[in-house]
């Protein structure tokens, strides 16, 4: 596998550290920032894996725009901190053991026979380049690409529907429907 | 046109006609319903005329009209009838117009719905007795729950909802296991057509105990066998008179019919193996039903428990697995329909007059309603098995068969069952005494009206049959004989009939 172990371990430690930091930080803003850092670290790892285009997208789309959006909403709502009222007290005591078991499952599955994992194909010269990716995107993966376009469109429409404040809060037909005499069916 | 199919589906004609009538045309709806059921009865008589007495096997058989294919198995719309089925169909078509007539005064609300459900119910019941394909049978079987559920739930007494749901769930709880058994057999043998299945019964001989139980649970609930009977008193008490008549007269017979039609021929070994156990339960039912009847205060409840006792006799006869037992059981199915149907009718008439079924509210009324008293007495005597009336012929034949049954194998058990005739006298005479004899305990009862012509017309056919079967049951036994003989042969010709021998 490419990349030196030192680089990997540093990045891995950063990634896990920031992820844990996000998890335990009391302040949502810190969480968002730490997550951005995490994304950046992962982007670095992508580079070591021969995926420069993806790495770049990761930085711009994820660490950049998405996390900015998050921060923006946090600031907008002023929701960085919550009252420390814990309703589900037993949740951690169940969740953490379960997650540990899950992690153990994954780990066992990965390291039980890692001979396969060590096999590395020799990548072609243009492996992971934007050109190669673009080429594939617009040929073999044209359909998924178009579908993502529709998904984004739907997301836009949906976001508008959900957040557009222009509708009257009360349904307009309320008075008529609450009338005790049954209203003539509207057709 | 096959008279069987006509008979089965003719009530639907009335259903459609009534569906198009306005809900306010109550009288017209009643007459249409009555006319429909009467025509159905005539059609069934025509069927009887067409029926050849003697040969075993199914007549007016539509054959295997393949209707659907489920995996590897064909579902066919096969219908046909033998003596057993014919008697049951006749019982149904006879009781239905009577039951409809009984609603003339008592059902005033939602007449349209009532009659719609009633006609649906009739088709469902006839279908049960006519179906030769297991899936078709099951369809009709389950379907009968629906109209009955509404008849109890919408036109019933105070606790009608409880009773209706209990009836539905209890019966359904039993029948789902039958569904599994049916499907399993279809899967194994590739057909649901009863004659084919009987021919291939060796295929599932290995698991027939389980299959037997699957069917038996469904039927035992319906019969109802002790201790699965507790839905019955509730259903009977809450149901309107017409519902009780049909419930006791026909629906319960579907259970015993099922045992005869399916359990015995399909699972002979299991039948033989379990016969002593089922007979034991039947005997418990006979005694238990009779004893518990005695402790009731509500007339309908009393009659309901008496059904447990009577159907215990039928079950005992069936699992005698000999000619007498089975023939007697089949005849007793008819008898019980007539006697208990008539009992419920009379109780219903009293209820119409006084709006209570508590025996305490009556007493000594024979003085004011002599005809009703006399008819009630005859029906009571028929129910307690007085020789010369129908009940005796059935009970005697059953007990005789059971007494000599090798399958049951215990004369002591049957002797204990015979005690039932004593207990029957105890509770039935108790009923008659509490209601009709003694002094007038309540002055207002002096104004009770005796039977009117409509009520006489309802009871008369039943009484004629009560006497007819009691004195000259031969035509009935002639109808029954081929079926019974066939069943006995089927049970005993099983490769494992060695079990039967001594």
């Amino acid at each position, binding site marked *: 596998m490419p990349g030196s172990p030192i680089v990997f371990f540093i990045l891995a430690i950063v990634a896990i550290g920031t992820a844990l930091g996000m998890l335990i930080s009391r302040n949502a803003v810190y969480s968002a920032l730490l997550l951005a850092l995490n994304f950046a670290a992962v982007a670095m790892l992508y580079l070591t894996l021969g995926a420069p285009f993806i790495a770049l997208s990761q930085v711009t789309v994820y660490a950049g725009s998405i996390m900015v959006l998050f921060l923006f909403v946090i600031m907008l709502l002023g929701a960085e901190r919550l009252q420390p009222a814990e309703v589900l007290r037993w949740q951690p005591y169940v969740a953490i053991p379960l997650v540990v078991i899950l992690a153990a499952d994954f780990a066992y599955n990965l390291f039980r026979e890692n001979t396969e994992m060590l096999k590395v194909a020799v990548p072609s010269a243009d492996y992971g380049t934007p050109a190669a990716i673009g080429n594939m995107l617009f040929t073999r993966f044209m359909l998924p690409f178009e579908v993502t376009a529709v998904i984004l469109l739907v997301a836009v429409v949906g976001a508008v529907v959900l957040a557009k404040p222009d509708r009257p809060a009360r349904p307009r037909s309320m008075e008529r429907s609450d009338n005790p005499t049954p209203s003539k069916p509207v057709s | 046109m096959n008279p069987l199919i006509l008979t089965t589906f003719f009530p639907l004609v009335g259903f459609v006609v009534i569906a198009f009538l306005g809900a306010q045309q109550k009288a017209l709806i009643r007459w249409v319903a009555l006319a429909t059921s009467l025509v159905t009865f005539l059609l069934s008589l025509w069927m009887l005329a067409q029926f050849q007495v003697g040969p075993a096997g199914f007549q007016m058989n539509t054959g295997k009209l393949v209707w659907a294919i489920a995996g590897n198995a064909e579902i066919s719309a096969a219908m046909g009838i033998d003596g057993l089925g014919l008697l049951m169909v006749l019982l149904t078509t006879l009781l239905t117009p009577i039951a409809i007539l009984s609603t003339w005064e008592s059902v005033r609300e939602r007449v349209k719905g009532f009659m719609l459900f009633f006609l649906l119910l009739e088709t469902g019941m006839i279908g049960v007795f006519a179906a030769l394909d297991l899936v078709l049978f099951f369809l009709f079987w389950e379907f009968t729950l629906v109209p009955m559920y509404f008849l109890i739930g919408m036109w019933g007494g105070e606790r009608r909802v409880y009773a209706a749901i209990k009836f539905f769930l209890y019966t359904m709880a039993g029948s789902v296991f039958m569904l599994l058994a049916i499907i399993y057999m279809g899967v194994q043998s590739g057909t649901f057509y009863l004659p084919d299945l009987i021919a291939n019964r060796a295929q599932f001989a290995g698991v027939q105990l389980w299959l037997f139980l699957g069917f038996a649970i469904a039927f035992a609930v319906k019969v109802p066998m002790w201790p699965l009977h507790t839905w019955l008193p509730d259903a009977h008490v809450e149901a309107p008179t017409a519902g009780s008549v049909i419930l006791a007269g026909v629906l319960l017979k579907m259970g015993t019919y099922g045992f005869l039609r399916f359990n015995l021929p399909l699972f002979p070994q299991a039948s033989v193996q379990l016969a002593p156990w089922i007979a034991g339960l039947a005997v418990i039912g006979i005694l238990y039903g009779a004893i518990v009847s005695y402790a009731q205060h509500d007339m309908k409840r009393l009659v309901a428990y008496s059904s447990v006792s009577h159907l215990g006799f039928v079950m005992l006869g069936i699992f005698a697995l000999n*000619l007498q037992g089975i023939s007697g059981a089949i005849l007793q199915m008819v008898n019980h329909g007539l006697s208990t149907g008539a009992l419920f009718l009379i109780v219903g008439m009293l209820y119409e007059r006084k709006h209570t079924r508590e025996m305490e509210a009556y007493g000594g009324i024979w003085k004011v309603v002599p005809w009703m008293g006399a008819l009630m007495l005859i029906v009571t005597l028929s129910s307690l098995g007085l020789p010369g009336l129908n009940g005796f012929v059935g009970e005697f034949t059953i007990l005789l068969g059971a007494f000599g049954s090798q399958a049951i194998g215990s004369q002591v058990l049957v002797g204990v069952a*015979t005690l039932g005739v004593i207990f029957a*006298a105890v509770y039935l005479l108790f009923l008659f005494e509490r209601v009709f*004899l003694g002094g007038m305990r309540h002055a207002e009862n002096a104004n009770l009206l005796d039977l009117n012509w409509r009520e006489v017309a309802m009871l008369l056919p039943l009484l004629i049959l009560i006497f007819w079967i009691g004195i*000259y049951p031969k035509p009935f036994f002639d109808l029954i004989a081929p079926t019974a*003989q066939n069943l006995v042969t089927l049970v005993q010709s099983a490769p494992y009939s060695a079990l039967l021998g001594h």
Partner: protein
Amino acid sequence: MLFQGIGAAGGSFSLVPWVVFLPVLGLLLNLLIGKRLGERGVGWIASLAVGAAFAVSALLAFSLMQHPEAVRVPLFDWITVGDFSASWAFRVDTLSVTMMLVVSGVGTLIHIYAAGYMHHDVRHNGEPARYTRFFVYMNLFIAAMMILVSADNYLMLFVGWEGVGLCSYLLIGFWFEKGAGEIANAKAAKKAFIANRIGDFGLLIALFLIFWNFHSLQFDEVFRQAAGAQPWVIRAITLFMLLGVAGKSAQIPLYVWLPDAMAGTTPVSALIHAATMVTAGVYLVTRTHVLYSLDATSQSTVAWVGAATALFAATIAVGQYDIKKVLAYSTISQLGFMVAAVGMGAYVGGMFHLITHAFFKALLFLAAGSVILGMESGQEVAYGHGGHGSSAAHEEFDPQDMRNMGGLRGRMPFTFWVYTIGSLALAGIAPLSGFFSKDEIMVAASQMNPAIFVILLLAVFLTAFYSWRQVSLVFFGSSRTRAAGAASENAPIITVPLIILAVLAVLGGLINFPGVNTLSGWLEHTLGALPEAAFNPLIAGVSLIVALAGIAAAWLSYGRQTATRPNRLDPIENNAAPLFNALAHRWWVDEMYQAVFIRPYQAIANFLAQVVDQGLIDGIVNGAGVVSRAAAQGVRQIQTGFVRSYALMVLLGVVAILTYLIVWRVP
């Protein structure tokens, strides 16, 4: 088919179904047009129907004299299932015709009597419209009884057997709204039916045993194979049949219904509960003598049951005040004699006593009825008209209580004479009929079993004692009430049958007069050669002396009884109160049955209905519902509404599935 069968039998034998059809015809006529006919017409039709049946019976008897072998007259198939077959078939032989003659003969007389008696009775009870109904029931009874005695197989016999039980029920409960608490009559009727049903249960079992061992219920067929059967089978059959006999013929332990059956009107008591129905058990044993003869144990059981009943009931009769109750216990006792006789193989003796008893007991009952009518009319005279109108006096006054009588000899001389004849016949005083028939039984007992002989002798003494006690209390002394003082003799329609019966009671002994033995010869054709019951002067003398002693004792105790203390007039009561108390309370048998059988049955019924059925069985059913709902509520708690716990549940599923795969399934 119907007439074809009749024709096949040939001769007048083919008329035998008419012994059933005629009463049925009578009842149908009365049922349909009785209202239009009026009382007189109804009575005529009913009596004629029975009389015609008697004529047919007589015709059959004459034919039988020429041709004494049994003839079977099949009518049509009844129940035929597989190898089981029972048809409506009549049997004409000397035994059945004897019974037919008794039934229809006594029946006719009683019908005539009843036509007069009921005229008063329905008015006394305030329900004149019920007159017709009475005769419908009566004819029905005759029909059922005829079926019983003329049946050619056990099943048809059983029809009659239960049919007479039904009529008994109907007639005991005829005044169903009367009696103590306005329900006692209805309850008495029910008691009779149920006690009979217990017996019928035994008979049914016997029938099953017979069929499964002999594959037939037809008499000849059964008897033909009887010798080849296993001993235990015969014993079981005969003992179960004995239960039936005990029910129908009111033997220990099932006799308790008969005293209560006196709630029925007097003609009913005479016809059903004295002369005919209750003797069906004796007839059954006689009819089945082939089987009984094969098993000594059951024979002696029968004999012992009969003897014990004879003595036991006689003791109770001594302590009764009700005129009909005395006769009822007397009937039980006499039935005990008959059963003992047939148990000892003295079938002719049993039948003989059956016949004579039919005469004198019917006479006694009818005469008692005459007394009661006289008392009632006296009561009306004494307390003003419309007995039921002055209800207070009516309710307190019991026209059947012998303490209210006394001195009726003068008021009702005719009744007194026939009553005395009947009582003497009952007591077994020579040369009245009862003497001869009873003597035959005593002879048989002395030959078979000395212990039984002694018991029966005691019973004879008591019989004579209570008979004369009754005569003394009713007819001698002075009137103890105003009603008794005002009582009057009855009309000829009442008294003519009494005369005929009195003649029969006197001359009945001729039927099987010692040395002539007409009845023995007659019945031999059916019963086969039987040991000759020779007349034994010693035995006859002893029993006659014992009977006379009984009469003397009664005369000494009651004859000069002039006491006007109606409440405490019995010398036994005065001198041996506990004993009399026991007798008056019928040895508390009813109370014991109440405590041992009826109350526990009710308690069990209530327990099963409330606790087991509603509580346990239905409780499990409803409990299943409750448990399901509780479980549902429990599971529902998981659905907290918190997204995080939902996610936790998802994770739980994920971990469970993955762990399962990792641990057990990963390749």
